[in-house]
């Protein structure tokens, strides 16, 4: 495509307003559903192969230590043990950074995260792995591996890591400021900045200024399925890996880099995946299982993490410290904003501070703004993506400050957001012009909602305090990457849709519906399937809210190709020009003839070949998603406990393909955000050991902790998608923490500046701020 961008964009933009659909917007039962409710669906850990060995990983008991020696001889001598691997079995990789998925990966660091080389950098860092004939033998063997460590002082938070004289994790690390390299060893991996306008003038214009510092803890995605990988290193040196991943092709590429093999040597078979939320875009076990298979004489090896290993050994998301100073004129117009944010990346650089820098103020029109972001390494697990990475922390800070400004000015908090809310043609704080978004629509819909219009409920018990809060969230989805699909018309008139995008929450049905809509068929006529890396073109990870958007575009294009071929087949059948053949709602017609899709499908294939289409695309997309949430809370000021009484989440989803699964994304994101807001946090001791690595003590919300979550769908179609789709998965986790904080402030007069707003933290805030309540 050699057309200029602007025209190209225009060419792909279709008018989707006021379109009426046959399939889109309905709620068919998902194709993979029956297997999932009957226990037949096979997830990663359900793989059972003949002669399969069990692998287990030895992990560091220290937060920071030099590895002096590793002696595996006693482990290898244990009956049943077939192989042991350490980082000595991995090639030393060059320190090269590549774009992987939505982020970037330094291959050496990825390799060192999979098996530590000279140092362990966090409690739980993988050091060695064994394969044995039973799980018990594998576990016993771990106890027989003798690792000598020299413990080193550790840093757990970004603030600790940035202090002068702090222990340095990576001796070679220098601060990078957009390509300029610092000179001294540091834990600050990078500094970036967005700046526009004149801060001084902006603050001078302000009638009210609020300045606060927020801190947030480390939280984990908390998917219910632990990481698992099963591998066979064949005697032909072809490697097959069964795993639960958000992107089979990405996993293949990462394994290939770590093992220094061509991708063609590796086949990744994606199993059903039990949640990911970004956390299963990174590999941990796959190369380990493959090496164990090789060293054990080509036996299949399955390695599955325990829940503790999931918490201690896989990427959660960043803790952070965020300073926000914001000024507003008396009419509510925000005149200036200054933000400084440091995100802890864990053991290796790569926190989502870049995402945070875009989230924190992009929903608002701001002329005078400066945002400084720091990526800081700490002795905690290397972070992985978590649903709108960096967004929840950032919005907690900015939405709290905007709420406080509104409070001080006596302006309704939704009105405050209406006054400042961004719309098409405004500029994002980081520069680019904003295209069609539905932010103000979410604010208006929230304001008109039954929830917002209703009075606060009375406390359930006298003495408890109730309050209402709102917050908004911006998330710049990743409507890009590459998606490839193949479509095959069967001669019974059904259509196979072959995808490579992981279906993590119902995307098979969303793809099938887009193809059915394109072809004028029913969703049940389409057979969607997610296949292995050898069987479909490259697909980027199911992440960044991209799949229904990007893979949807590929599906639509493949559908158009099928339509064209069906017209040609009909033209041959009727001996007319294909240009004179129409296709509408699954019926192919010319002036004198018409035939249904299924009937025509039955006639093709007799000596003419099948009707098939394969499409691969890398769209330059857009699809910013915005949401506004409302929450009512009840606060027990004697215990600090916060109960969620009512929750409404309004979101611009572009076009809802399958509204039930769109609602599900909104509800699930809100629930995760509420968990983050109220109780979730890694707790470390002084030595940097993770104390609460279990689902008992890392408290994710239960059914009893949440009310029904009302999902209100706003549809402002995205012009860059044929059906107007915007990514929906991530933005719903952005507003909840801010909304809950604002509700607590409304109930108690106390401003929470720490996440989680656990009973302990709320009590402490009530004690310390008790006198300054508003």
């Amino acid at each position, binding site marked *: 495509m050699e057309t200029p961008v602007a025209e190209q964009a225009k060419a792909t933009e279709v008018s989707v307003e006021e379109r009426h659909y046959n399939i889109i917007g309905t*709620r068919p*039962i*998902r194709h*993979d*559903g*029956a297997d*999932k*409710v*009957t*226990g*037949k*669906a*096979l*997830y990663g*850990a*359900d793989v*059972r192969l003949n002669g399969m060995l069990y692998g287990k990983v030895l992990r560091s008991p220290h937060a920071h230590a030099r590895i002096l020696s590793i002696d595996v001889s006693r482990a290898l001598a244990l009956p049943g043990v077939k192989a042991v691997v350490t980082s000595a079995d991995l090639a030393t990789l060059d320190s090269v950074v590549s774009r992987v998925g939505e982020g970037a990966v330094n291959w050496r660091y990825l390799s060192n995260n999979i098996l530590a080389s000279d140092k362990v950098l966090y409690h739980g860092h993988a050091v060695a792995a064994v394969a044995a004939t039973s*799980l*018990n033998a594998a576990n016993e063997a771990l106890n027989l591996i003798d690792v000598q460590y020299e413990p080193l002082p550790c840093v757990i938070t970004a603030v600790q890591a940035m202090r002068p004289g702090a222990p340095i994790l990576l001796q070679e690390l220098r601060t990078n400021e957009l390509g300029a390299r610092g000179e001294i060893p540091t834990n600050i991996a990078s500094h970036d900045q967005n700046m526009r306008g004149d801060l001084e003038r902006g603050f001078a214009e302000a009638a009210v200024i609020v300045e606060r510092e927020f801190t947030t803890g480390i939280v984990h*995605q*908390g*998917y*219910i*399925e*632990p990481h698992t990988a099963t591998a066979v290193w064949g005697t032909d040196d072809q490697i097959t890996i069964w795993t639960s991943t958000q992107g089979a092709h990405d996993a293949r590429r990462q394994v290939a880099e770590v093992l220094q093999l061509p991708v063609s040597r590796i086949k990744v078979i994606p199993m*059903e*995946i*039990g*949640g*990911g*939320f970004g956390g299963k875009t990174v590999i941990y076990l796959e190369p380990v299982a493959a090496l164990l298979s090789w060293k054990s004489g080509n036996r299949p090896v399955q390695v*599955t993490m*325990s*829940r503790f290993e999931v918490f201690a050994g896989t990427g959660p998301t960043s803790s952070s410290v965020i300073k926000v100073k914001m000024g507003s004129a008396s009419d509510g117009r925000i005149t200036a904003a200054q933000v400084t944010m440091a995100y802890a990346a864990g053991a290796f650089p790569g926190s989502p501070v870049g995402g945070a820098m875009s989230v924190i103020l992009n929903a608002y029109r701001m002329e005078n703004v400066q945002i400084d972001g720091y990526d800081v390494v700490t002795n905690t697990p290397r972070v992985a993506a978590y649903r709108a990475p960096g967004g929840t922390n950032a919005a907690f800070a900015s939405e709290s400050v905007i709420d406080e400004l509104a409070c001080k000015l006596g302006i309704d908090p939704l009105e405050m957001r209406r006054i400042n809310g961004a719309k098409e043609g405004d500029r994002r704080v980081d520069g680019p012009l904003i295209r069609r978004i539905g932010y103000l629509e979410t604010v208006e819909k929230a304001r008109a909602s039954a929830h917002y219009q209703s009075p606060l409920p009375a406390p359930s018990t006298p003495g408890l305090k109730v309050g209402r809060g709102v917050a908004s969230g911006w998330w710049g989805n990743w409507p890009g990457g590459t998606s490839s699909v193949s479509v095959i018309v069967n001669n019974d008139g059904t259509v196979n849709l072959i995808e490579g995008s992981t279906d*993590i*929450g*119902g995307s098979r049905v969303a793809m099938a519906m887009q193809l059915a809509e394109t072809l004028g068929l029913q969703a049940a006529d389409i057979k969607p399937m997610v296949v292995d890396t050898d069987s479909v073109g490259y697909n980027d990870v199911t992440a960044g809210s991209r799949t229904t958007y990007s893979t949807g575009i590929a599906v639509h294009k493949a559908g158009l190709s099928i339509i064209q071929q069906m017209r040609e087949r009909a033209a041959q059948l009727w001996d007319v020009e294909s240009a004179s053949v129409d296709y509408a709602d699954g019926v192919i017609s010319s002036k004198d003839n018409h035939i249904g899709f299924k009937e025509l499908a039955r006639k093709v294939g007799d000596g003419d070949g099948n009707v098939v289409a394969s499409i691969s695309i890398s769209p330059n997309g857009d699809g910013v998603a915005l949401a506004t949430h409302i929450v009512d809370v009840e606060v027990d000021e004697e215990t600090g406990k916060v109960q969620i009484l009512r929750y409404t989440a309004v979101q611009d989803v572009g076009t809802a393909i*399958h509204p*039930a*699964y769109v*609602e*599900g*994304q909104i*509800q*699930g*994101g*809100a*629930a*995760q955000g509420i968990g983050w807001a109220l109780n979730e946090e890694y707790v470390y001791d002084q030595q940097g050991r993770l104390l609460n690595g*279990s*689902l*008992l003590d890392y408290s*994710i*919300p*239960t*059914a*009893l902790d*949440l009310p*029904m*979550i009302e999902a209100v769908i706003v549809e402002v179609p995205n012009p860059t998608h044929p059906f107007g789709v915007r990514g929906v998965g991530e933005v719903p986790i952005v507003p909840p923490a801010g909304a809950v904080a604002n509700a607590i402030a409304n109930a108690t007069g106390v401003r929470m500046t720490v996440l989680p707003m656990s009973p302990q933290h709320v009590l402490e805030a009530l004690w310390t701020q008790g006198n300054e309540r508003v």
Partner: protein
Amino acid sequence: MANKTAVQATINGEDVEFLCEPHQSLLEVLRDVLRLTGTKEGCNNGNCGACNVILDGVLVNSCLVLGVEAQGKRITTIEGIAPPHGLHPLQQKFLEHAALQCGICTPGFIISAKALLDHKPHPSEHEVRHWLAGNLCRCTGYDKIVRAVLDAADVMAVEVSK
């Protein structure tokens, strides 16, 4: 290595006999010995409910039961609740309400919900939430799960009254 014990149990209505080591949990036995992998492992210490099964009419975490304790017991797993050629009303309602996203917690939820409805056919929303509090779902926020269970209870009540 400890000796294996022969255990006889009735699983999903079928008499089975299996060999297991004393330290193997019922969850391990179901998944690795009997290859009934519909019962899932989420935490292996009783905090997530993904491995829930019904043992002699009582809802339990199969990770907190030893395989050898199954001797003489009746066990119902997710593989055993649907009628031939069909789905249990809970399974049907989970599909209709889109009460699953990734689906890993779904077998545990359906088993817990079945135990609830066996015990209390007309639960309130609060009772459903209380009963399901030991089952963690990270995808749905529970909204559609609770609705599916309440709807299934209604449907089952109608079926019973017919």
